[in-house]
């Protein structure tokens, strides 16, 4: 059939059957949920188990009062789904919501209130917070307005990159913070479009995966606090308080005020993919912005409170998230909701993976008890649409469930490895008794992930939630007063060390030590087995002035300061070369945990441990020096990494190498730049082949190879 003929096909469902409130309508299709453009109209479908009646409320875009209120005729209800197609709507210029009527009886979990206009949980766009930081008109009855979104983006030949998990180098970044600083020099600072302009920077750095802090619509103005010192208003800057799970944050788009945020975000993703960079979203399914019984009614609470939230027998909200409510993730309806949401982001936005905030909650039963075989996690692991996406769990929750190493993985799930972070931090600051556990962590944590392989471990030293790398080596204690919570917020167990002075100092020795410690951290991170994750800005020593919980700081405390790219070029270069080195050496990215088995091609074990004396690691509690040598199948190089957290230097005896190979120096954090690191392949052969003096608190990386291929 030609295109012209197909356009001429008559469809019965393109015509109205009823009239409601002066609008021509017909019964809609229950699936898919949400508002979908169909021939001649828009089909609206919404679920509510206990509502006695449902009304579609339509506004002309931006108008305070509705232009129409259309009650769903009884015959438009299938099961617990209300579905109606409304004809003749200009879908670009309307906003919509629902009034759900039903019982108000909190003890049984029902909080229906037909006076409230509710957001559609499946809304693909939200209006009301279109430009970041603009004070909302709170007198308006309906704040977060659902909008219709066309799903017609031209992806061209964009396909998932499918980068093997073990090859990922993840970069955790905040959409706004990355380019909001006035010195970012982008056209639209703080937006998806702004981030898009910085793709060349990311590419040059060498990362191949960007993990974005929440981009689902949230309300940055829902933080009532102000800075006690300056009086400046505080925001919900990070956005871990989702208002709408299907809608990209309008305030993150230069085009949000035109309702173009979907296209702008997709354009960013398409261009990131073209640059070889995957996109992972940090998603927050453990709670919503509706809070507890004191919180606002936005959507779920008014549509079907008892289904969407975990409630106590008295009808109050369980609070395993620490933020007021807990999503009832293993309720069959909510399970499908989460699944639909993730499918939407994969199919309609080409997202490559997800990091689940407080994911342990996803494994709790309807009454809050942990499930041995959580159906939601299994569902996500096997879903056909999500099949090749990366699934990463923050394997703990605020209710005390800590599942690092035990998260139900179904062969798919990886985890943020909090134990890696804690161990490497303790080693770096010079704690006693850490070398044994350090060895386990840098070998991909076989104690935690023996059956899952090294790629189950996302290794990180810093993340949005805690000190930046620069602050980790500059502060013993957090400095969170600006958050207005009397410094009571944020983690206290930071394992940080200020190197001799608290905060900024003019002391050149302390500053040199701090730089070295940052290089040590980066060197260990990128030579560890598992997926490395770098916090945005750590490569240029981004500081938050000791604030380890900048969730509310929309200012220079949080923003990436682009002047630091020049000011800290030394650290940036070091990080770039370390990332390149990792890519160069397959043995660092092996999915299998090392066993100590001898590799036939080299006659050396896949992993071996060394101390001051070759082959003689010192595991005693006062030991602060450990060296590891790795070689892999197919690779002819040997990589030797010596880590010295001791405040004294040590003479290292290097293991002998087979087949005409000799030790070449790649990095020595104790050396002055530019001799601190080289380009992979450009390592310099050591003069004294058997020995190397490692400086105090330094990491040395050597490559055992031959420059003469005939010697192999």
């Amino acid at each position, binding site marked *: 059939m030609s295109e012209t003929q197909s356009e001429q096909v008559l469809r019965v469902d393109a015509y109205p059957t009823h009239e409601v409130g002066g609008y021509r309508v017909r019964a809609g299709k229950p699936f898919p949920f949400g508002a979908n453009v169909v021939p001649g109209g828009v089909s609206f479908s919404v679920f509510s188990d206990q509502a006695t009646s449902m009304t579609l409320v339509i506004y002309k875009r931006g108008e305070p009062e509705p232009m129409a209120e259309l009650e769903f005729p009884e015959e438009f209800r299938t099961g617990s789904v209300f579905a109606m197609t409304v004809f003749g709507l*200009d*879908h*670009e*210029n309307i906003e919509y919501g629902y009034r759900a009527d039903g019982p108000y009886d909190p003890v049984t979990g029902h909080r229906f209130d037909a006076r409230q206009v509710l957001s559609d949980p499946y809304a693909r766009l939200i209006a009301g917070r279109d430009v970041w930081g603009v004070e909302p008109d709170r007198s308006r009855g309906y704040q977060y307005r659902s909008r219709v979104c066309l799903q017609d983006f*031209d992806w*061209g030949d964009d396909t998932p990159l499918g980068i093997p998990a073990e090859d990922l180098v993840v970069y955790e970044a905040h959409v706004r913070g990355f380019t909001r600083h006035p010195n970012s020099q*982008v*056209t*639209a600072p703080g*937006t998806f*479009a*702004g981030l*898009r*302009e910085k793709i060349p920077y990311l590419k040059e750095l060498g990362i191949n995966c960007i993990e974005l802090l929440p981009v689902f619509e949230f309300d940055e103005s829902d933080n009532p606090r102000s800075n006690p010192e300056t009086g400046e208003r505080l925001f919900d800057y990070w956005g871990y308080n989702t208002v709408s799970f299907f809608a990209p944050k309008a305030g993150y788009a*230069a*085009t949000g005020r*035109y*309702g*173009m945020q979907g*296209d*702008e975000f997709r*354009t960013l993703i398409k261009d990131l993919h073209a640059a070889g960079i995957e996109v992972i979203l940090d998603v927050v399914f453990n709670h919503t912005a509706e809070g507890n019984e004191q919180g606002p009614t936005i959507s779920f609470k008014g549509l079907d409170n008892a289904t969407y939230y975990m409630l106590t027998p008295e009808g109050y909200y369980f609070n395993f998230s620490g933020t007021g409510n807990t999503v009832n993730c293993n309720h069959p309806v909510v399970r499908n909701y989460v699944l639909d949401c993730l499918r939407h982001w994969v199919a309609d936005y080409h997202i490559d993976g997800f990091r689940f905030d407080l994911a342990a909650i996803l494994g709790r039963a309807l009454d809050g008890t942990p499930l041995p075989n959580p159906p939601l996690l299994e569902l996500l692991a096997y879903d056909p649409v999500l099949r090749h996406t990366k699934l990463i769990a923050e394997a703990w929750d605020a209710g005390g469930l800590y599942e690092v190493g035990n998260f139900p993985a179904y062969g798919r799930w990886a985890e943020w490895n909090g134990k890696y972070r804690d161990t490497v931090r303790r080693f770096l600051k010079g704690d006693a008794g850490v070398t044994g556990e350090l060895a386990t962590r840098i070998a991909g944590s076989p104690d935690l992930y023996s059956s899952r392989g090294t790629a189950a471990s996302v290794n990180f030293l810093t993340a949005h939630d805690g000190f930046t790398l620069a602050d980790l080596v500059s502060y013993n204690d957090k400095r969170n007063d600006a958050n207005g919570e009397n410094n009571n917020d944020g983690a206290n167990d930071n394992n940080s060390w200020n190197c001799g002075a608290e905060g900024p100092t003019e002391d050149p020795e302390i500053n040199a030590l701090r730089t070295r410690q940052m290089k040590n951290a980066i060197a260990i991170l990128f030579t560890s087995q598992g997926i490395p994750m770098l916090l945005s800005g750590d490569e240029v020593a981004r500081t938050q002035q000791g604030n380890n919980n900048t969730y509310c700081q929309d200012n220079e405390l949080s923003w990436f300061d682009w002047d630091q790219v020049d000011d800290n070029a030394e650290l940036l270069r070091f990080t770039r070369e370390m990332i390149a080195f990792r890519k160069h050496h397959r043995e660092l990215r092996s999915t299998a945990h090392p066993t100590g088995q001898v590799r036939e091609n080299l006659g050396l074990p896949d992993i071996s441990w060394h101390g001051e004396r070759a082959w003689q690691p010192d595991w005693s509690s006062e030991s602060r020096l450990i060296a590891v040598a790795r070689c892999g199948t197919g690779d002819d190089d040997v990589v030797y990494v010596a880590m010295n957290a001791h405040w004294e230097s040590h003479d290292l005896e290097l293991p002998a190498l087979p087949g005409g190979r000799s030790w070449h120096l790649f990095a020595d954090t104790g050396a002055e730049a530019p001799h601190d690191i080289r380009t992979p392949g450009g390592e310099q052969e050591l003069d004294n082949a058997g020995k190397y003096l490692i400086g105090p608190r330094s990491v040395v990386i050597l490559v055992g190879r031959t420059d003469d291929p005939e010697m192999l």
Partner: protein
Amino acid sequence: MPLSVSLSIEGDTTVIELTGELDAKTAPDFHQTIEKAAGHGTSTVEIRMAGVGYMASAGLRSLVFAQQKVANNVTIKVVGAIEPVSRTIRTAGLDRSIVLSDE
């Protein structure tokens, strides 16, 4: 105000001239013209917008559409847009991929 759209070729440039309002109702005409222009294979598509007094999000969408429709090596030029229209294009960050020009 209805949109009038004209299409012509001047050397290696395909010229689209728009007059009127570019909104949800009129954008389909513009889309069709872009499809045609993309098929011409010229190195530049010049969109003359001096006569466009108003551009809704549908118009912005049309420009994104145009950008996607033409080959990578084709330059899209928006010429003569009045300040409110060019400001919209700049805010959207589209001036990175579309050349905005006064003349």
